[in-house]
């Protein structure tokens, strides 16, 4: 019950439904901890964690570091821009050198899909994937599910809209795996060029009209257009995207029902979502950020718990 079936958190795809539920229920305990006057517990005091970020990050990196510090772990931070990666060192060499300094756990973000899965085959430390290219971002999906559950209760049968750049979004893929395992219904919405062919096979619906999609859902997770990953033009202009697929006050108010608005950040205000919606009472964007720390504490705690017996 309290054990995870895996030693690493590489992606939601590898987790069982029970694993997800264990992480979410443990996260609720940690949310209580981070609201205490003294927010630190000594649980991971004998563990050293390396945060390896081969790609830019603000939220995820700060969130992981805070989660680790709240658990009293020793933390080392590494970013590729200031490291020997620039001198041509391979990923495995970099990580093995860091692990030789007695590191127990690795949190890694990497631009190449599958990089953490490759590492898991070659090293003993527990690995947490903090985003691998356009593939998966498991802790984001877990914190999204946790935030939705806080608002809506059990997610079985709940209607979740994921709108935006589905093709380049690791958040979308992890969310789909996670929500499907928890029994939610999912609709994807975005320009046809940004919705991968055959994605229906993961058990999702597709809707190209944002107004119809919003009217259908209980909760809308709005994703950013990832211009940095797009090397061809997928739609004519950001202005046209905002007009056709952007979530604005008018569209939300015309629904005549309450829906929950989420966004994994960073927000491009005025493109996928307008400020008046992002900052409205429907939005739980900042709750997501708070819950991120609790969910990551839970993942670190449960993997460390698993660590010694293997």
């Amino acid at each position: 019950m309290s054990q995870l079936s895996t030693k690493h958190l590489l992606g939601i795809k590898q987790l069982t439904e029970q694993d997800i539920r264990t992480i979410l229920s443990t996260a609720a305990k940690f949310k209580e901890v981070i609201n205490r006057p003294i927010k630190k517990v000594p649980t991971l005091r004998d563990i050293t964690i390396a945060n390896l970020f081969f790609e830019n990050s603000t939220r995820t990196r700060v969130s992981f570091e805070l989660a680790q510090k709240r658990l009293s772990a020793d933390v080392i931070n590494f970013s590729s821009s200031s490291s020997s990666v620039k001198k041509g060192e391979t990923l495995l060499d970099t990580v093995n050198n860091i692990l030789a300094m007695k590191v127990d756990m690795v949190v890694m973000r990497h631009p190449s899909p599958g990089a953490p899965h490759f590492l898991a085959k070659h090293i003993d430390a527990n690995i947490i994937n903090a985003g691998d290219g356009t593939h998966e971002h498991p802790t984001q999906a877990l914190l999204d599910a946790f935030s939705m559950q806080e608002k809506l209760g059990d997610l079985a049968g709940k209607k979740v809209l994921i709108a935006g750049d589905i093709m380049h979004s690791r958040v979308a893929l992890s969310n789909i795996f996670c929500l499907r395992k928890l029994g939610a219904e999912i609709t994807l919405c975005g320009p046809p060029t940004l919705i991968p062919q055959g994605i229906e096979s993961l058990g999702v619906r597709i809707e190209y009209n944002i107004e119809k999609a919003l009217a259908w859902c209980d909760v809308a997770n709005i994703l950013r257009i990832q211009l940095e990953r797009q090397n061809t033009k997928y739609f004519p202009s950001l202005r046209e995207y905002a007009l056709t697929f952007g979530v604005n006050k008018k569209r939300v108010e015309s629904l005549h029902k309450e829906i929950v608005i989420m966004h994994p950040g960073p927000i491009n205000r005025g493109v996928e979502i307008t400020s008046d919606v992002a900052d409205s009472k429907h939005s739980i964007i900042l709750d997501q950020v708070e819950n991120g720390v609790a969910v990551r504490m839970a993942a670190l705690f449960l993997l460390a718990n698993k660590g010694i017996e293997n």
Partner: protein
Amino acid sequence: MEARVLLDTDLLDITITRLCYELIENYGDFSNSAIIGVQPRGAVFAEYLHSKLKTLTNIPITFGKIDPTFHRDDFRRGDDILQAKTTEMDFAVEGKKILLVDDVLFTGRTIRSAMDALISFGRPSKVELLALIDRRFNRELPIQADYLGITVDTVEPVKVKVEWENDADVTKNIVWILKDK
């Protein structure tokens, strides 16, 4: 497995009633005090004790539950995977007189970690410990209870099990001593 009754329902009730009167003697009207049960089993006992005190005194007494899991010293060391329970502390600990409640006082390690967890909520003016059963020969830390139900002089592999009528498959309050044949 050989099972022997240590405290039957009537004796257990007498013991708990006696503990309640000891508390009333020392805590008066329970102002600026709180009773906190140590999760998981101490919290069940504490709830029982709390409702009994309420019946006897008819005054509201601040009550909470604390989970010591994240403060334990055996994380990653034992065979058991630690599982956290909920902490319910919707009051300020700062400056209060706190009574920690557990069912069985064994090695003292749970109480050590519960005190650590308690301090994260503020600085109580005083902390006392009430235990229903004291297995004094098994202590691994210098921790003793201020209020005691009964002392049993047993060592492992003998186990003490406290059952409450609200537990699953249990009909009455009872304390067992369990021994492998």
